[in-house]
């Protein structure tokens, strides 16, 4: 598999797509999110696996997003996600609140190709009250006479999973290490678009030590090299989050004007500007 450019990868995400994305602490495709802003993506439906952070806030602020399904949106130590918060207050975003294990479970159902899976908890939460697509049914395996209502969650199949992996090989296999929830998202999605730090020679699946952390090329539609592509978030043990930059983003994005200033400086100037700033 020949890597394509970051901008070409962004062009593979059609307007209106249901896009599964990891949060800041996992394998965030920050560079790809900036490329999606540059491409002027519209009407995206974001799915947090299981929550969202910087990349989603950026896309929301830039008007790329119509809908968000997530268990939270946060910038971690940098605080609340300002463009998400503003959009909820303005009522410009369709928002489906979930809880982390429900998102994992819906993706696992899609991964298995079954129509639904059950999950404990949730009964009595207003999250459930606002999810007509989630159902409560009696546990068919409960002892006779026992009352045991349980929530059933439908399989959720994203159009696209986007994430930033540590490496790809010549075959198009990508290595995500212990971030198995991203592997589940990739398995559940129709196709995965992946940025990587680097491409290595050979086949990762032939290395017994690395293979358990690999997502097979079977699931991967395209790969682009984006060095420090998770920045300003961190990547596994490769680099730490840039806390000062995330704090700067959080400060600027508090206002629409500040957000535009941020985009002019770090997003619209092109991929090279962001990399240089890192």
């Amino acid at each position, binding site marked *: 598999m020949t890597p394509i450019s970051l901008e070409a990868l962004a062009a593979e995400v059609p307007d209106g797509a249901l896009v599964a994305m990891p949060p800041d602490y996992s394998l965030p495709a920050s560079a790809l999110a900036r490329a999606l802003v540059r491409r002027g993506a519209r009407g995206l439906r974001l799915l947090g696996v299981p929550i969202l952070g910087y990349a989603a806030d950026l896309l929301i602020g830039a008007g790329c997003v119509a809908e968000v399904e997530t268990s939270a949106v946060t910038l*971690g130590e940098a605080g609340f996600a300002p463009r998400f918060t503003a959009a909820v207050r303005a009522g410009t975003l369709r928002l489906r609140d979930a*809880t982390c*294990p429900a998102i994992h479970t819906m993706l696992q159902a899609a991964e298995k190709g079954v129509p639904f899976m059950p999950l404990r908890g949730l009964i009595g939460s207003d999250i459930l009250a606002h999810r007509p697509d989630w159902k409560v049914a009696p546990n068919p395996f409960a002892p006779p006479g026992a009352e045991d209502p349980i929530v059933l969650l439908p399989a959720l199949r994203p159009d696209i999973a986007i994430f930033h992996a540590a490496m790809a090989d010549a075959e198009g296999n990508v290595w995500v290490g212990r971030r198995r929830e991203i592997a589940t998202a990739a398995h559940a999605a129709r196709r995965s678009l992946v940025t990587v730090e680097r491409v290595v020679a050979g086949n990762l699946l032939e290395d017994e030590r690395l293979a358990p952390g690999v997502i097979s090329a079977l699931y991967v539609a395209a790969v682009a090299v984006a060095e420090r592509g998770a920045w300003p978030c*961190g990547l596994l043990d490769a680099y730490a989050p840039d806390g000062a930059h995330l704090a700067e983003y959080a400060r600027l994005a508090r206002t629409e004007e500040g957000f535009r200033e941020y985009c002019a400086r770090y997003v619209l100037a092109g991929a090279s500007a962001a990399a240089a700033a890192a």
Partner: protein
Amino acid sequence: MSAAAIRPEERLAVAIARLVLDPEAPPARHVAIGAASPIPAAACFLVRALGHPLRVSLQQRRTANPFSEGSRELFDLAGQGRIDLFFLGGGQIDGQANINLIGTGEWPGREARFPGSFGSALMYFLTPRTILFREEHSPRVLVPRVDIVSAPGVSPPGVYRRGTAQALVTGRCVFRFHPERARFSLLSLHPGETVESVRAATGFDFDIPAHVPPTPEPTEQELALLRGPVRETMLEPYPEFCARVFDRKSAA
């Protein structure tokens, strides 16, 4: 050892550690802690440093994460009953221990939006005990009734639930939760607080025993452990907290 003044964070960590060790509560062998919970983490590391066996899993560590199946493993463990204790907070917490991590005003938080519910709508049901923790103790946080329920404090009979809140720890006091009557009672008062000052700062009604003791002072041993081995353990996962709480003091 240093005679430095006891910081509020140290008092809170010690108060939480004593709740973790409460012999009347279900046993705690494995506790999971989120990224935004440095004080509960310090409390649990203190319990370990005091010699009690307690597995402490820091959920969002970027390196040396305790889980190898990604972020779903925490919830799978909770589903099986392999997490004994968890900590939750809330933008709003009410007198029935309902928590709201979504927002205020109309759904989904049109007045003030919080980040979201995270895993609370599962963890609160499946963990045998939860310690609620929120430093800000004010009528805007501790409300008569939450605007939106992320996770309910109690559940009707027939709904699968392993446990409820054990206690609510704030910057002013410790409340114990009584699931059978879905009410808090005042357990102890932090320095400078009175029953009246707590009542004035609390939006919900709660029970007041005839005698409310002060929250016990940290012992010299507890302080030495917090400022020694606990701090060392906390440095990597909670650097900003350590700089703020421990380093300033050691420099003073």
